[in-house]
Protein backbone atom coordinates (compact mmCIF):
# COMPACT_ATOMS: atom_id res chain seq x y z
CA UNK A 1 0.00 0.00 0.00
CA UNK A 2 1.44 3.32 -1.00
CA UNK A 3 1.60 6.09 1.59
CA UNK A 4 -0.29 8.41 -0.76
CA UNK A 5 -3.17 5.96 -0.98
CA UNK A 6 -3.45 5.65 2.79
CA UNK A 7 -3.42 9.43 3.17
CA UNK A 8 -6.02 9.72 0.43
CA UNK A 9 -8.28 7.17 2.12
CA UNK A 10 -8.04 8.98 5.46
CA UNK A 11 -8.74 12.40 3.93
CA UNK A 12 -11.58 11.01 1.85
CA UNK A 13 -13.31 9.49 4.85
CA UNK A 14 -12.93 12.50 7.14
CA UNK A 15 -15.53 15.25 7.22
CA UNK A 16 -13.27 17.65 9.14
CA UNK A 17 -9.71 18.91 8.55
CA UNK A 18 -6.94 16.64 9.80
CA UNK A 19 -3.42 17.65 10.76
CA UNK A 20 -0.50 15.83 9.18
CA UNK A 21 0.35 14.28 12.53
CA UNK A 22 -3.23 13.06 12.86
CA UNK A 23 -3.14 11.47 9.42
CA UNK A 24 0.19 9.82 10.29
CA UNK A 25 -1.55 7.83 13.01
CA UNK A 26 -3.20 5.76 10.29
CA UNK A 27 -0.14 3.55 9.93
CA UNK A 28 3.10 2.86 11.78
CA UNK A 29 5.08 3.33 8.59
CA UNK A 30 3.93 6.97 8.27
CA UNK A 31 5.38 10.09 9.81
CA UNK A 32 4.48 13.76 9.38
CA UNK A 33 7.01 14.40 6.63
CA UNK A 34 5.81 11.41 4.62
CA UNK A 35 2.23 12.62 4.98
CA UNK A 36 3.22 16.07 3.70
CA UNK A 37 5.02 14.45 0.76
CA UNK A 38 2.04 12.23 0.02
CA UNK A 39 -0.24 15.26 0.05
CA UNK A 40 2.02 17.01 -2.47
CA UNK A 41 1.89 13.89 -4.61
CA UNK A 42 -1.90 13.72 -4.42
CA UNK A 43 -2.28 17.42 -5.19
CA UNK A 44 -0.23 17.04 -8.34
CA UNK A 45 -2.22 13.98 -9.28
CA UNK A 46 -5.56 15.74 -8.75
CA UNK A 47 -4.46 18.77 -10.74
CA UNK A 48 -3.19 16.69 -13.63
CA UNK A 49 -6.31 14.57 -13.79
CA UNK A 50 -8.56 17.64 -13.37
CA UNK A 51 -10.41 16.36 -10.35
CA UNK A 52 -13.38 18.42 -9.10
CA UNK A 53 -11.85 18.46 -5.62
CA UNK A 54 -8.61 19.54 -4.03
CA UNK A 55 -6.73 18.98 -0.82
CA UNK A 56 -7.06 22.32 0.95
CA UNK A 57 -5.12 23.49 3.96
CA UNK A 58 -7.76 24.80 6.29
CA UNK A 59 -8.27 25.16 10.02
CA UNK A 60 -4.81 23.93 10.93
CA UNK A 61 -5.19 20.77 8.86
CA UNK A 62 -5.95 19.24 5.50
CA UNK A 63 -9.35 18.55 4.02
CA UNK A 64 -10.67 17.39 0.67
CA UNK A 65 -12.99 20.11 -0.63
CA UNK A 66 -14.60 20.68 -3.98
CA UNK A 67 -13.18 23.40 -6.20
CA UNK A 68 -15.07 26.69 -5.83
CA UNK A 69 -16.23 26.71 -9.47
CA UNK A 70 -18.54 23.77 -8.77
CA UNK A 71 -20.50 25.65 -6.13
CA UNK A 72 -23.41 26.53 -8.48
CA UNK A 73 -24.05 22.85 -9.17
CA UNK A 74 -23.83 21.74 -5.56
CA UNK A 75 -25.97 24.55 -4.20
CA UNK A 76 -29.00 23.06 -5.92
CA UNK A 77 -29.01 20.13 -3.53
CA UNK A 78 -30.66 20.27 -0.15
CA UNK A 79 -28.41 17.50 1.10
CA UNK A 80 -25.27 19.60 0.63
CA UNK A 81 -24.40 21.66 3.71
CA UNK A 82 -25.36 25.28 3.18
CA UNK A 83 -22.60 27.69 4.09
CA UNK A 84 -23.60 29.93 6.96
CA UNK A 85 -23.02 33.67 6.90
CA UNK A 86 -22.26 35.75 9.95
CA UNK A 87 -23.89 39.09 10.66
CA UNK A 88 -22.06 42.42 10.45
CA UNK A 89 -21.70 42.84 14.22
CA UNK A 90 -20.50 39.24 14.50
CA UNK A 91 -17.82 39.79 11.85
CA UNK A 92 -16.72 43.05 13.47
CA UNK A 93 -16.44 41.40 16.87
CA UNK A 94 -14.59 38.41 15.41
CA UNK A 95 -12.17 40.74 13.63
CA UNK A 96 -11.33 42.44 16.91
CA UNK A 97 -10.92 39.18 18.79
CA UNK A 98 -8.85 37.61 16.00
CA UNK A 99 -6.32 40.45 15.98
CA UNK A 100 -6.27 41.25 19.67
CA UNK A 101 -6.58 37.86 21.30
CA UNK A 102 -6.62 37.24 24.16
CA UNK A 103 -9.05 40.09 24.75
CA UNK A 104 -11.83 40.81 27.24
CA UNK A 105 -15.39 41.89 26.54
CA UNK A 106 -14.91 45.44 27.85
CA UNK A 107 -12.09 46.10 25.39
CA UNK A 108 -14.11 44.71 22.50
CA UNK A 109 -16.93 47.05 23.47
CA UNK A 110 -14.58 50.02 23.70
CA UNK A 111 -13.23 49.38 20.23
CA UNK A 112 -16.68 48.85 18.70
CA UNK A 113 -18.35 51.56 20.75
CA UNK A 114 -21.35 49.35 21.46
CA UNK A 115 -22.34 46.62 23.90
CA UNK A 116 -21.19 43.25 22.65
CA UNK A 117 -22.13 40.69 25.29
CA UNK A 118 -24.82 39.12 23.09
CA UNK A 119 -22.59 38.85 20.02
CA UNK A 120 -19.79 37.34 22.08
CA UNK A 121 -22.15 34.75 23.53
CA UNK A 122 -23.42 33.84 20.06
CA UNK A 123 -19.90 33.48 18.70
CA UNK A 124 -18.99 31.31 21.67
CA UNK A 125 -22.09 29.15 21.20
CA UNK A 126 -21.12 28.64 17.57
CA UNK A 127 -17.64 27.58 18.65
CA UNK A 128 -15.89 30.36 16.74
CA UNK A 129 -14.37 31.85 19.88
CA UNK A 130 -13.71 30.48 23.32
CA UNK A 131 -12.51 31.60 26.70
CA UNK A 132 -8.74 31.30 26.70
CA UNK A 133 -7.94 32.72 30.08
CA UNK A 134 -8.59 35.42 32.61
CA UNK A 135 -7.18 38.91 32.61
CA UNK A 136 -5.54 40.83 35.39
CA UNK A 137 -7.49 43.44 37.25
CA UNK A 138 -10.90 43.86 38.73
CA UNK A 139 -13.02 40.71 38.57
CA UNK A 140 -10.37 38.85 36.56
CA UNK A 141 -12.34 39.30 33.31
CA UNK A 142 -12.71 36.42 30.87
CA UNK A 143 -10.43 36.65 27.87
CA UNK A 144 -11.49 35.36 24.48
CA UNK A 145 -9.59 33.94 21.54
CA UNK A 146 -10.46 32.37 18.21
CA UNK A 147 -10.77 28.61 17.76
CA UNK A 148 -9.83 26.07 15.12
CA UNK A 149 -13.43 26.26 13.96
CA UNK A 150 -12.93 29.97 13.30
CA UNK A 151 -10.11 29.10 10.89
CA UNK A 152 -12.27 26.43 9.25
CA UNK A 153 -15.20 28.80 8.87
CA UNK A 154 -13.15 31.35 6.95
CA UNK A 155 -11.00 28.82 5.14
CA UNK A 156 -7.79 29.98 6.82
CA UNK A 157 -4.95 27.54 7.35
CA UNK A 158 -3.74 29.56 10.33
CA UNK A 159 -4.05 33.02 11.86
CA UNK A 160 -1.28 34.13 9.48
CA UNK A 161 -3.87 34.04 6.70
CA UNK A 162 -5.74 36.94 8.27
CA UNK A 163 -5.39 40.15 6.30
CA UNK A 164 -2.23 41.83 7.52
CA UNK A 165 -2.50 45.34 8.95
CA UNK A 166 0.04 46.61 6.40
CA UNK A 167 -2.23 45.36 3.60
CA UNK A 168 -5.08 47.43 4.90
CA UNK A 169 -5.77 51.02 3.92
CA UNK A 170 -5.67 52.30 7.47
CA UNK A 171 -2.63 51.72 9.59
CA UNK A 172 -3.54 50.29 12.94
CA UNK A 173 -1.25 51.55 15.65
CA UNK A 174 -0.12 49.69 18.67
CA UNK A 175 -2.61 50.48 21.36
CA UNK A 176 -2.03 51.77 24.84
CA UNK A 177 -3.65 49.39 27.34
CA UNK A 178 -7.28 50.30 27.89
CA UNK A 179 -6.98 51.00 31.62
CA UNK A 180 -4.29 53.60 30.94
CA UNK A 181 -6.45 55.17 28.25
CA UNK A 182 -9.44 55.47 30.55
CA UNK A 183 -7.25 56.77 33.37
CA UNK A 184 -5.90 59.40 31.03
CA UNK A 185 -9.35 60.51 29.97
CA UNK A 186 -10.62 60.77 33.51
CA UNK A 187 -7.68 62.81 34.79
CA UNK A 188 -7.52 65.06 31.77
CA UNK A 189 -3.92 63.94 31.26
CA UNK A 190 -2.52 62.96 27.92
CA UNK A 191 -3.46 59.41 26.99
CA UNK A 192 -0.43 57.71 25.59
CA UNK A 193 1.49 58.92 22.59
CA UNK A 194 0.29 61.67 20.34
CA UNK A 195 -1.27 61.34 16.94
CA UNK A 196 1.22 61.50 14.13
Amino acid at each position, binding site marked *: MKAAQIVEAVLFASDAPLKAEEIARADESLDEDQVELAIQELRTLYDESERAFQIVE*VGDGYQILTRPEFAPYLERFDTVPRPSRLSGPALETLAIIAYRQPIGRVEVEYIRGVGSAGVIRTLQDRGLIDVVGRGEGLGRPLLYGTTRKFLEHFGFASLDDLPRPEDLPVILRERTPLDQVLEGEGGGEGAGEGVA
Partner: protein
Amino acid sequence: MESAAFSRAPTGGAAPARAGSSGRGDLLVVELDRFQGPLDLLLHLVRRQDIDIFDIPIATITDQFLEAIQGLDTEDLDGAGEFLEMAATLVRIKAQMLLPRPQDDEDEDPRAELVRRLLEYEQIREIAVRLAAAEAERGRRFGKGYVEPRPRGILVDPPLETTWDEVMAAAMAVKVPRPEARPHRLRTGLVPLEEKIQLILDALKEASRVEFGALVAPWKEKIHGVMTLLAGLELSRQRAVSLHQVRLFHELWILRRELEAWAGEVRPGGPGEGTLTEGEEVA
Protein backbone atom coordinates in the same frame (compact mmCIF):
# COMPACT_ATOMS: atom_id res chain seq x y z
CA MET B 1 -26.64 48.64 16.60
CA GLU B 2 -27.80 45.14 16.34
CA SER B 3 -31.43 45.99 16.44
CA ALA B 4 -33.41 48.66 14.73
CA ALA B 5 -33.80 50.29 18.09
CA PHE B 6 -33.65 53.80 16.80
CA SER B 7 -36.55 55.43 15.19
CA ARG B 8 -35.76 57.05 11.93
CA ALA B 9 -34.70 60.65 12.18
CA PRO B 10 -37.64 62.80 11.21
CA THR B 11 -37.63 63.63 7.55
CA GLY B 12 -39.87 65.78 5.44
CA GLY B 13 -40.68 68.97 7.30
CA ALA B 14 -37.79 68.66 9.69
CA ALA B 15 -35.10 67.87 7.19
CA PRO B 16 -34.86 71.20 5.36
CA ALA B 17 -34.56 73.04 8.65
CA ARG B 18 -31.69 70.83 9.75
CA ALA B 19 -30.00 71.08 6.41
CA GLY B 20 -30.33 74.84 6.56
CA SER B 21 -28.84 75.15 10.00
CA SER B 22 -25.87 73.00 9.16
CA GLY B 23 -25.36 74.41 5.71
CA ARG B 24 -24.39 70.96 4.47
CA GLY B 25 -27.53 69.93 2.68
CA ASP B 26 -28.60 66.31 2.61
CA LEU B 27 -25.24 65.10 3.88
CA LEU B 28 -26.62 65.12 7.35
CA VAL B 29 -29.88 63.39 6.78
CA VAL B 30 -28.85 60.13 8.38
CA GLU B 31 -30.83 57.14 9.33
CA LEU B 32 -29.63 56.20 12.75
CA ASP B 33 -30.64 52.56 12.53
CA ARG B 34 -28.25 52.13 9.65
CA PHE B 35 -25.36 52.55 12.04
CA GLN B 36 -23.89 49.95 14.30
CA GLY B 37 -23.08 52.47 16.98
CA PRO B 38 -21.74 55.94 17.73
CA LEU B 39 -18.29 55.26 16.22
CA ASP B 40 -19.91 54.12 13.02
CA LEU B 41 -22.00 57.30 12.87
CA LEU B 42 -19.07 59.55 13.70
CA LEU B 43 -16.89 57.90 11.08
CA HIS B 44 -19.66 58.36 8.56
CA LEU B 45 -19.89 62.08 9.34
CA VAL B 46 -16.11 62.53 9.05
CA ARG B 47 -15.63 60.48 5.90
CA ARG B 48 -18.60 61.82 3.96
CA GLN B 49 -17.43 65.38 4.37
CA ASP B 50 -13.89 64.55 3.36
CA ILE B 51 -12.55 65.83 6.63
CA ASP B 52 -8.90 65.31 7.53
CA ILE B 53 -9.26 62.80 10.33
CA PHE B 54 -6.13 64.11 12.04
CA ASP B 55 -7.59 67.61 12.20
CA ILE B 56 -11.27 67.13 12.90
CA PRO B 57 -13.21 70.38 13.30
CA ILE B 58 -14.57 69.16 16.59
CA ALA B 59 -17.16 71.91 17.10
CA THR B 60 -18.81 71.26 13.73
CA ILE B 61 -18.71 67.50 14.08
CA THR B 62 -20.14 67.71 17.60
CA ASP B 63 -23.08 69.79 16.38
CA GLN B 64 -23.71 67.40 13.50
CA PHE B 65 -23.51 64.40 15.78
CA LEU B 66 -25.96 65.91 18.26
CA GLU B 67 -28.31 66.77 15.43
CA ALA B 68 -28.11 63.27 14.00
CA ILE B 69 -29.10 61.66 17.27
CA GLN B 70 -32.22 63.78 17.67
CA GLY B 71 -34.24 60.78 16.61
CA LEU B 72 -32.85 58.56 19.35
CA ASP B 73 -35.30 56.19 20.90
CA THR B 74 -34.78 57.28 24.48
CA GLU B 75 -36.61 54.23 25.77
CA ASP B 76 -33.82 51.98 24.59
CA LEU B 77 -31.47 52.99 27.38
CA ASP B 78 -28.62 50.69 26.39
CA GLY B 79 -28.54 51.71 22.76
CA ALA B 80 -29.25 55.39 23.39
CA GLY B 81 -26.69 55.44 26.18
CA GLU B 82 -23.88 54.54 23.80
CA PHE B 83 -24.74 57.47 21.53
CA LEU B 84 -25.19 59.81 24.46
CA GLU B 85 -21.86 58.78 25.92
CA MET B 86 -20.17 59.64 22.64
CA ALA B 87 -22.02 62.95 22.56
CA ALA B 88 -20.68 63.71 26.04
CA THR B 89 -17.14 62.82 24.95
CA LEU B 90 -17.43 65.13 21.95
CA VAL B 91 -18.70 68.00 24.07
CA ARG B 92 -15.87 67.47 26.54
CA ILE B 93 -13.26 67.48 23.78
CA LYS B 94 -14.86 70.59 22.31
CA ALA B 95 -14.51 72.31 25.69
CA GLN B 96 -10.91 71.16 26.07
CA MET B 97 -10.09 72.56 22.65
CA LEU B 98 -11.15 76.00 23.85
CA LEU B 99 -8.73 75.94 26.77
CA PRO B 100 -5.25 77.28 26.10
CA ARG B 101 -2.72 74.45 25.94
CA PRO B 102 0.99 74.68 26.50
CA GLN B 103 2.91 73.88 23.36
CA ASP B 104 5.17 71.19 24.83
CA ASP B 105 4.77 67.55 23.87
CA GLU B 106 3.60 66.50 27.30
CA ASP B 107 0.01 67.37 26.69
CA GLU B 108 -1.70 65.56 23.91
CA ASP B 109 -4.27 66.96 21.55
CA PRO B 110 -7.65 66.33 23.26
CA ARG B 111 -8.85 64.73 20.03
CA ALA B 112 -6.04 62.17 19.92
CA GLU B 113 -7.77 59.26 21.61
CA LEU B 114 -10.94 59.79 19.60
CA VAL B 115 -8.96 59.82 16.37
CA ARG B 116 -7.21 56.62 17.38
CA ARG B 117 -10.54 54.99 18.09
CA LEU B 118 -11.99 56.12 14.79
CA LEU B 119 -9.01 54.86 12.80
CA GLU B 120 -9.04 51.63 14.66
CA TYR B 121 -12.75 51.16 14.18
CA GLU B 122 -12.40 51.93 10.50
CA GLN B 123 -9.75 49.29 10.21
CA ILE B 124 -11.83 46.74 12.10
CA ARG B 125 -14.66 47.44 9.68
CA GLU B 126 -12.31 46.90 6.76
CA ILE B 127 -11.15 43.61 8.25
CA ALA B 128 -14.77 42.57 8.77
CA VAL B 129 -15.38 43.14 5.05
CA ARG B 130 -12.37 40.96 4.23
CA LEU B 131 -13.59 38.29 6.62
CA ALA B 132 -16.96 38.30 4.91
CA ALA B 133 -15.21 37.83 1.57
CA ALA B 134 -13.15 34.94 2.96
CA GLU B 135 -16.30 33.42 4.41
CA ALA B 136 -18.06 33.66 1.05
CA GLU B 137 -15.10 32.09 -0.72
CA ARG B 138 -14.93 29.26 1.79
CA GLY B 139 -18.67 28.79 1.33
CA ARG B 140 -18.09 27.90 -2.29
CA ARG B 141 -16.11 24.82 -1.37
CA PHE B 142 -17.84 21.76 -0.08
CA GLY B 143 -16.51 18.96 2.02
CA LYS B 144 -18.01 15.62 2.68
CA GLY B 145 -20.90 15.26 5.03
CA TYR B 146 -24.56 14.61 4.54
CA VAL B 147 -27.07 16.94 6.07
CA GLU B 148 -30.77 16.41 6.50
CA PRO B 149 -32.76 17.92 3.66
CA ARG B 150 -33.94 21.35 4.66
CA PRO B 151 -37.65 21.61 5.30
CA ARG B 152 -39.23 23.85 2.73
CA GLY B 153 -41.75 26.57 3.30
CA ILE B 154 -42.10 26.27 7.03
CA LEU B 155 -39.03 28.24 7.95
CA VAL B 156 -40.89 31.48 8.56
CA ASP B 157 -42.81 31.69 11.78
CA PRO B 158 -46.29 33.05 11.18
CA PRO B 159 -46.61 36.48 12.77
CA LEU B 160 -48.29 36.46 16.14
CA GLU B 161 -51.51 38.33 15.63
CA THR B 162 -53.22 37.56 18.89
CA THR B 163 -53.91 40.56 21.08
CA TRP B 164 -54.07 40.59 24.83
CA ASP B 165 -57.80 41.24 24.64
CA GLU B 166 -58.22 38.02 22.70
CA VAL B 167 -56.13 36.14 25.21
CA MET B 168 -58.27 37.57 27.99
CA ALA B 169 -61.47 36.63 26.16
CA ALA B 170 -60.19 33.11 25.60
CA ALA B 171 -59.24 32.82 29.24
CA MET B 172 -62.68 34.00 30.35
CA ALA B 173 -64.40 31.55 28.00
CA VAL B 174 -62.78 28.58 29.70
CA LYS B 175 -65.29 26.74 31.87
CA VAL B 176 -63.94 25.42 35.10
CA PRO B 177 -65.01 21.77 35.30
CA ARG B 178 -67.28 21.03 38.24
CA PRO B 179 -65.55 18.77 40.75
CA GLU B 180 -68.45 16.28 40.99
CA ALA B 181 -68.54 15.81 37.25
CA ARG B 182 -64.97 14.60 37.18
CA PRO B 183 -64.82 10.89 36.28
CA HIS B 184 -63.10 8.76 38.82
CA ARG B 185 -61.47 5.66 37.50
CA LEU B 186 -60.26 2.68 39.40
CA ARG B 187 -57.96 0.18 37.90
CA THR B 188 -59.22 -3.33 38.24
CA GLY B 189 -56.80 -5.46 40.18
CA LEU B 190 -55.04 -8.08 38.16
CA VAL B 191 -55.64 -10.60 40.94
CA PRO B 192 -59.36 -11.25 41.43
CA LEU B 193 -60.68 -11.39 44.96
CA GLU B 194 -62.73 -14.50 44.11
CA GLU B 195 -59.57 -16.40 43.27
CA LYS B 196 -58.13 -15.71 46.69
CA ILE B 197 -61.38 -16.55 48.44
CA GLN B 198 -61.34 -19.87 46.63
CA LEU B 199 -57.71 -20.36 47.62
CA ILE B 200 -58.56 -19.92 51.29
CA LEU B 201 -61.62 -22.16 51.05
CA ASP B 202 -59.60 -24.87 49.31
CA ALA B 203 -56.91 -24.71 51.93
CA LEU B 204 -59.50 -24.96 54.67
CA LYS B 205 -61.03 -28.08 53.11
CA GLU B 206 -58.00 -30.05 54.15
CA ALA B 207 -57.17 -28.35 57.40
CA SER B 208 -59.10 -26.45 60.01
CA ARG B 209 -56.65 -23.61 59.93
CA VAL B 210 -54.05 -22.19 57.60
CA GLU B 211 -51.24 -19.69 57.97
CA PHE B 212 -51.67 -16.48 56.03
CA GLY B 213 -47.96 -16.57 55.16
CA ALA B 214 -48.27 -20.00 53.59
CA LEU B 215 -51.04 -18.77 51.28
CA VAL B 216 -49.00 -15.78 50.15
CA ALA B 217 -45.58 -17.46 49.92
CA PRO B 218 -45.84 -18.75 46.29
CA TRP B 219 -46.19 -15.20 44.92
CA LYS B 220 -43.74 -12.37 44.99
CA GLU B 221 -46.00 -9.45 44.17
CA LYS B 222 -47.48 -7.52 47.03
CA ILE B 223 -50.88 -7.52 45.36
CA HIS B 224 -51.29 -11.24 46.20
CA GLY B 225 -50.74 -10.51 49.87
CA VAL B 226 -53.22 -7.63 49.72
CA MET B 227 -55.87 -9.64 47.91
CA THR B 228 -55.42 -12.66 50.17
CA LEU B 229 -55.88 -10.45 53.20
CA LEU B 230 -58.97 -8.86 51.64
CA ALA B 231 -60.30 -12.33 50.85
CA GLY B 232 -59.72 -13.34 54.45
CA LEU B 233 -61.52 -10.22 55.66
CA GLU B 234 -64.40 -10.84 53.27
CA LEU B 235 -64.79 -14.45 54.43
CA SER B 236 -64.56 -13.27 57.98
CA ARG B 237 -67.28 -10.74 57.30
CA GLN B 238 -69.40 -13.55 55.92
CA ARG B 239 -68.57 -15.49 59.05
CA ALA B 240 -67.02 -18.32 57.07
CA VAL B 241 -63.65 -17.94 58.75
CA SER B 242 -62.15 -16.19 61.66
CA LEU B 243 -58.78 -14.49 61.76
CA HIS B 244 -56.40 -14.96 64.62
CA GLN B 245 -53.23 -13.18 65.44
CA VAL B 246 -51.58 -13.62 68.80
CA ARG B 247 -49.62 -10.43 68.72
CA LEU B 248 -48.94 -7.56 66.43
CA PHE B 249 -46.75 -8.61 63.44
CA HIS B 250 -47.06 -12.27 64.35
CA GLU B 251 -48.31 -14.89 61.97
CA LEU B 252 -51.93 -14.47 60.98
CA TRP B 253 -54.01 -17.62 61.12
CA ILE B 254 -57.17 -18.20 59.15
CA LEU B 255 -59.53 -20.58 60.98
CA ARG B 256 -62.47 -22.45 59.53
CA ARG B 257 -65.75 -21.69 61.19
CA GLU B 258 -68.47 -24.25 61.03
CA LEU B 259 -71.57 -22.13 61.01
CA GLU B 260 -75.03 -22.65 59.76
CA ALA B 261 -75.00 -19.43 57.75
CA TRP B 262 -72.13 -20.65 55.63
CA ALA B 263 -73.37 -22.78 52.73
CA GLY B 264 -70.12 -22.99 50.89
CA GLU B 265 -70.96 -20.42 48.27
CA VAL B 266 -69.12 -17.24 47.79
CA ARG B 267 -71.11 -14.12 48.38
CA PRO B 268 -68.73 -11.26 47.84
CA GLY B 269 -71.37 -8.56 48.20
CA GLY B 270 -73.46 -10.37 50.73
CA PRO B 271 -74.78 -8.87 53.91
CA GLY B 272 -72.88 -9.15 57.10
CA GLU B 273 -71.11 -7.21 59.72
CA GLY B 274 -67.99 -5.38 58.87
CA THR B 275 -66.34 -6.06 62.17
CA LEU B 276 -64.10 -8.82 63.28
CA THR B 277 -65.44 -10.93 66.02
CA GLU B 278 -64.11 -12.78 68.99
CA GLY B 279 -61.31 -10.45 69.74
CA GLU B 280 -59.30 -11.15 66.64
CA GLU B 281 -56.68 -8.65 65.81
CA VAL B 282 -55.57 -8.00 62.35
CA ALA B 283 -52.33 -6.23 61.93
